[in-house]
């Protein structure tokens, strides 16, 4: 009968089936809750935060709104903190810097704890590397090329150094061929890396128009 699986043994040379793992985790949570070592509500909140709130979709929403609404874009560039509050994202001292055909922006943080989490989620590990932080300031064009972004010499590169007082978000250029897309569809194109400045937003080629989805 059940109970004789070698859960206590450590000689697993194969993958456990998902159901076994799922039950194991339920058992753990059940015991931990009983012993008041954790509350399921706390676990719910954490999972929900990481699944729903902590990611680049808030920033993507801001970018998409700026693309479709020129007046919003002006407000965003004039006062980033106030403009993102309009969309319900608050509490960040933010400056939004716009990529144009003449200027490409790149964000770094030489002190490294400065990142607009609420807009773009967890910082990538490379962002926090000494290598990125120093080279982005010294040789941004080379760094960008390594990320696959070729910025010709005719385009200026501006590097923004975040601090505890001010975080930066890049407003990427809207890719051509997206004129027919809805705000929601546009937001889905915007990546975290594009909002840091190490990627361009791609128009997903060959994708048929998708039905309108609920707000991200």
């Amino acid at each position: 009968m059940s109970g004789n699986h070698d859960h206590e043994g450590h000689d697993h040379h194969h993958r456990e089936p998902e159901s076994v793992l799922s039950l194991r985790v339920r058992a753990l949570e059940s015991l931990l809750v009983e012993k008041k070592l954790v509350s399921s509500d706390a676990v719910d909140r954490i999972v929900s935060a990481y699944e729903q709130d902590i990611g680049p979709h808030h920033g993507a929403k801001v970018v998409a709104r700026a693309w479709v609404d020129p007046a919003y874009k002006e407000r965003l560039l004039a006062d980033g903190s106030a403009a993102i509050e309009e969309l319900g994202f608050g509490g960040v001292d933010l400056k939004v810097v716009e990529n144009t055909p003449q200027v490409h922006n790149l964000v770094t943080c030489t002190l490294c704890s400065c990142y607009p989490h609420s807009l773009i989620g967890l910082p990538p590990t490379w962002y926090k590397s000494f290598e990125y932080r120093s080279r982005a300031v010294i040789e941004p064009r080379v760094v960008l090329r390594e990320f696959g972004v070729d910025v010709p010499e005719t385009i200026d590169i501006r590097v923004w150094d975040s601090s505890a007082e001010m975080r930066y978000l890049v407003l990427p250029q809207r890719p051509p061929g997206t004129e027919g897309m809805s705000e929601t569809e546009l937001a889905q194109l915007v990546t975290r890396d594009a909002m840091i400045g190490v990627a361009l937003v791609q128009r997903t080629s060959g994708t048929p128009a998708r039905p309108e989805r609920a707000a991200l």
Partner: protein
Amino acid sequence: MDPVPSRQIADMTGQAALPRKNGELVFDEAWQGRIFGMTVAMSHEARFEWREFQARLIAEIARAEREGEASTYYERWLRAFERLVADKSLLDPGDVSRRHGDFESGRRDDVF
């Protein structure tokens, strides 16, 4: 209150790095989110320090790699977590096995 993602979580690198896509954590199965959440919650409650868990995760990943195990990232996380709570005498492994058996057999059906 806006949840501020833990720097410690963001700082996990190399093989111990959390699976992510475009900056978001990826949980392929619900249990993965649960064990992640339990670990984070308990460290917030100071049942253990994050770096204690991290050390066990790194050790478990190294062991699994050495032995050529096909286990996934979160399987290894789970094992590291179980090892940690046992070492800290927070849970008894026998109790865990018994409770697992209860869920398996349907004697138990819920978390509470």
